[in-house]
């Protein structure tokens, strides 16, 4: 072991120190680029690099091979320090064929001068059309100023294995280990781990492929980078947002998750289906989303606080049930992993388009708590908080995540379990005489609920207007009492919320406001322009409803306020759009109404999470529209929406 290790260090060329890089590995689906990317990220993370990975997922199960839409793979941002988002365009791209590469080129995902490593076998493909296509793309790349490096992946792999299609990804991993000066022992260990259910023979074949890739790179490439590492002092976990949600459910003490499959929420339930049993929990796949929500309500009513996990279409279906839980004051956690809308929309793409329907959804006055997770770690802790709020206030807590967070991986400090995260065991003690089903507290609207099994507490909950005894109400006074108390609970919760901190100075020219998953990208963009001396700060919200106090005061301290969101807002530059008819972005609606500050908004409804570079451009644009217009020729393509 030491021998090989030392051999590697010996042949190594001097590495150029860089601070960060965005690397993409793309292939047809089934060729393993995902696995390669994830392994690469893991190794880097273990060495102490900051990482953030983004999945590149084709929309079909088995898209045609060598097709533009078929690109499947992984984007890994790795950096010396912690990173909070996927970064901007790719600095290095490994492509298994020229078509998937073309897809990324069309999507404008390659940075100027990006390094391209391209499987060369297609140049000599027996099918003339394929060979032609390859050389066309190659030439176009060259014309565009790239210097693609052709790598004989297939040829090299065939020296070691019979089916190169299944081996290439580990060869590429070796290649990348060489390029980024990663620890080969960690790489070998990684392979041993991911193939641990496979035979020793397979593991060793993959080790050979890894090393072949490494050696080939050492021998043939003169690119070598070294990104400084700061090995973690504390244990970290590397997980994606949906796994974090699943772990959060386990850690929150919830016992029941009722769901119906829907992308991109389902992988959280997949994970839970696998592991929830170990803590006594159960995942119930219901016949539809309505049943899933009703099931969760039934379980919560019976004292076992439950969660239901879904995405947009399922969320819309649950509206009536959510209103019932609000009305009957039954705790319920609803997780909505948002995807591109409206309707079936773009199932695998991120969007933050469901906030307003979360806030205002369900007929009548149905006040519920709406939270949004800001990063992977926050996905975990938000579930725990959501369960606690749901049970403290006997109400519905909607937790918003999105397709971006769902599949992005990031290291975060390993949580230390605390029993405080769990609710106490359900109360089955007799109810004292005179205590009513809805003994609303005058000040807070709160109620201590009575759970089936408690002697002397018998009553019937109902979605009809009802009085303190849970009897159907027939008059204004009684109805009003219920409506008031349910609303008041939000105010009571609001009093406990801290004003979110301003990122940057407390006053200034421009305040960028965001919520949920865009935190990393926005703050990075703000930091960049601040470094250039601009007077820009940002504010990021986790609690959408209720909203912490003090926000209006912050907004007022800036000359301009701009909401940046991953959802639609009409563009003032569109001919027909005026102040009078502009449809604002989700958060802008709420903030404008609450603060009366003239908040502008910018949004994107696209394929990927918003990039820091995009936000940066938007900021610069807002600060000096004309100047930017001239100096950023790329602007149109990159889409100031």
């Amino acid at each position, binding site marked *: 072991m030491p021998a090989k290790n030392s051999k590697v260090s010996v042949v190594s060329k001097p590495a150029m120190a860089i601070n960060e890089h965005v690397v993409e590995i793309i292939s047809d689906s089934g060729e393993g680029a995902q696995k390669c990317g994830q392994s690469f990220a893991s190794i880097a993370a*273990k060495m102490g690099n900051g990482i953030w990975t983004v999945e590149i997922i084709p929309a079909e199960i088995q898209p045609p091979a060598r097709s533009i839409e078929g690109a499947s793979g992984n984007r890994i941002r790795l950096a010396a320090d912690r990173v909070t988002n996927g970064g901007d365009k790719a600095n290095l791209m490994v492509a298994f064929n020229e078509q998937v590469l073309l897809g990324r080129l069309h999507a404008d995902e390659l940075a100027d001068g990006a390094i391209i490593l391209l499987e060369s076998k297609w140049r000599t493909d027996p099918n003339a059309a394929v060979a032609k296509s390859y050389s066309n793309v190659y030439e176009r790349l060259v014309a565009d100023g790239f210097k693609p490096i052709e790598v004989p992946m297939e040829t090299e792999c065939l020296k070691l294995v019979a089916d190169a299609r299944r081996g290439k990804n580990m060869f590429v991993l070796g290649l990348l280990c060489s390029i980024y000066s990663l620890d080969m022992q960690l790489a070998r260990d990684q392979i041993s781990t991911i193939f641990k259910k496979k035979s020793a023979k397979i593991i060793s074949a993959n080790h050979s492929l890894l090393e072949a890739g490494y050696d080939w790179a050492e021998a043939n490439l003169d690119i070598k980078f070294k990104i400084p590492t700061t*090995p*973690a*002092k*504390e*244990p*970290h*976990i*590397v*997980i994606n947002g949906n*796994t974090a949600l699943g*772990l959060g459910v*386990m*850690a929150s*003490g919830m*016992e*029941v998750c009722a769901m119906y499959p829907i992308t991109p929420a389902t992988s959280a339930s997949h994970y839970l289906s696998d*592991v929830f*049993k*170990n*803590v*006594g*929990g*159960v995942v*119930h796949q219901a*016949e*539809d989303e309505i*049943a*899933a929500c*009703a*099931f*969760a*309500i*039934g*379980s*919560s*009513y*019976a*004292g*076992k606080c439950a969660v239901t996990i879904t995405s947009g279409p399922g969320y819309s279906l649950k509206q*009536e*049930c959510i209103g*019932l839980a609000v009305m*009957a004051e039954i705790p319920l956690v609803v997780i909505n992993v948002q995807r591109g809308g409206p309707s079936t929309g773009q199932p695998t793409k991120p969007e933050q388009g469901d906030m307003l329907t979360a806030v205002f959804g369900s007929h009548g006055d149905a006040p519920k708590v709406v939270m949004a997770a800001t990063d992977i770690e926050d996905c975990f802790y938000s579930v725990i908080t959501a369960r606690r709020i749901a049970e403290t206030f006997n109400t519905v807590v909607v937790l918003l995540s999105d397709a971006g967070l769902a599949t992005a991986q990031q*290291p975060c400090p*390993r949580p230390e*379990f605390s*029993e405080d995260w*769990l609710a106490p065991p359900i109360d089955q003690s007799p109810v004292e005489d005179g205590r009513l089903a809805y003994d609303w507290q005058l000040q807070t609207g709160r109620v201590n609920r009575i759970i*089936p*099994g408690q*002697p*002397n*507490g*018998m*009553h*019937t*909950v*109902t*979605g009809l207007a009802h009085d303190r005894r849970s009897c159907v109400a027939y008059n204004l006074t009684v109805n009003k009492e219920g409506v008031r108390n349910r609303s008041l609970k939000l105010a009571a919760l609001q009093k406990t919320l801290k004003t979110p901190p301003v990122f940057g100075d407390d006053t200034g020219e421009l305040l960028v406001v965001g919520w949920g998953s865009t935190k990393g990208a926005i703050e990075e963009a703000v930091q960049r322009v601040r470094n250039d001396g601009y007077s820009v700060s940002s504010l990021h919200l986790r609690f959408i409803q209720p909203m912490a106090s003090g926000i209006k005061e912050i907004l007022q301290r800036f000359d301009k306020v701009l909401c940046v969101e991953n959802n639609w807002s009409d563009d003032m530059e569109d001919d027909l759009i005026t102040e009078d008819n502009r449809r604002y972005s989700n958060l802008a609606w709420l903030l404008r109404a609450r603060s009366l500050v003239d908040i502008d908004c910018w949004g994107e409804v696209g394929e990927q999470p918003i990039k820091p570079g995009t936000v940066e451009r938007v900021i610069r644009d807002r600060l000096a529209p004309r100047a930017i217009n001239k100096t950023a020729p790329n602007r149109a393509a990159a889409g100031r929406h």
Partner: protein
Amino acid sequence: MAVRATDLLLSSGDEEHTLEEYEGRMPRWCTGCGDLAILAAVQKLCRDKQLNREKVVFVSGIGCSSRFPHYMGTYGFHGLHGRALPVAEGVKMRRPDLDVFVNTGDGDCCSIGAAHWMHATRYNMNMTVMMHDNNIYGLTKKQASPTSPKGTRSNTTPRGSDLDAFDPLAATLGMSNLSFVAQAVDWIPELLYKIIKQGYEHRGFSFIRILQRCPEFMPNRFEACVQDPDKLLLLTHKNGIELSPGLAKVYKNQKEHDPLDLVGAQEIAGTSERVPVGILYRNDSVPCYEDLRQPTELITPQLIRKGLETELDKFTIWPSD
């Protein structure tokens, strides 16, 4: 007949529970409404079984019949139109100690709730479901329901409904994982009681369709059957319902039917000129979903900690020092 936790409690020396204890709010149904008879039968059953009131939950949807839980002295959940069954499943899932009953209407169950009904049958959770079938939408004041006979004049079918009535028995008998189906009528208290009792005693999803009179909106619907015992066909069997001599004398049309005989049941449901009353099908060997999915260990903070740590370990990068 399975033994229930609640049965055992009888020996604990508590005072006997009286019928009154199982009464809740004053029923607000119309005079002569068949729901009243169902309520009486159920209250009697609870008393006879000496159920602990706090351990019983009645779940319902929306409709006249779904007001039922309010009138019981137990816990109740009066939820949404069509969604009684999934709520009841959620209640039962991790609270097997609770006795769960469901009251649903023909609209609630066979129309808006039909998918849940099909799947509840398949889950086969241990609960007793009474479908109050008055062949009409009562609470919303007279619209045709799926079970309304063809030609029913209602507010949405003023010239008479167009379709043949939907048959809930035939439908149930086609559903997978079926474990118990019976039919009762509100106007023969003895049978009503016996059938609900068998449903309660069956461990699994017991579906009981009860023909229920709605004098307000379907005054003549079941009159012929009420008046003429010949219009009924009583299903009897030693593993099903056994008739009292009194009943046996009045209701002459009887048929030995073994509840295990599915094809026989389908024939009865599909072809009978007469209204069958009794147990159509019962199969005690279908497992209950809540049993299949119960936790294998006692859930404690320690268990959760252990499970969570195991998971976290999988994803952890430990400091290399």
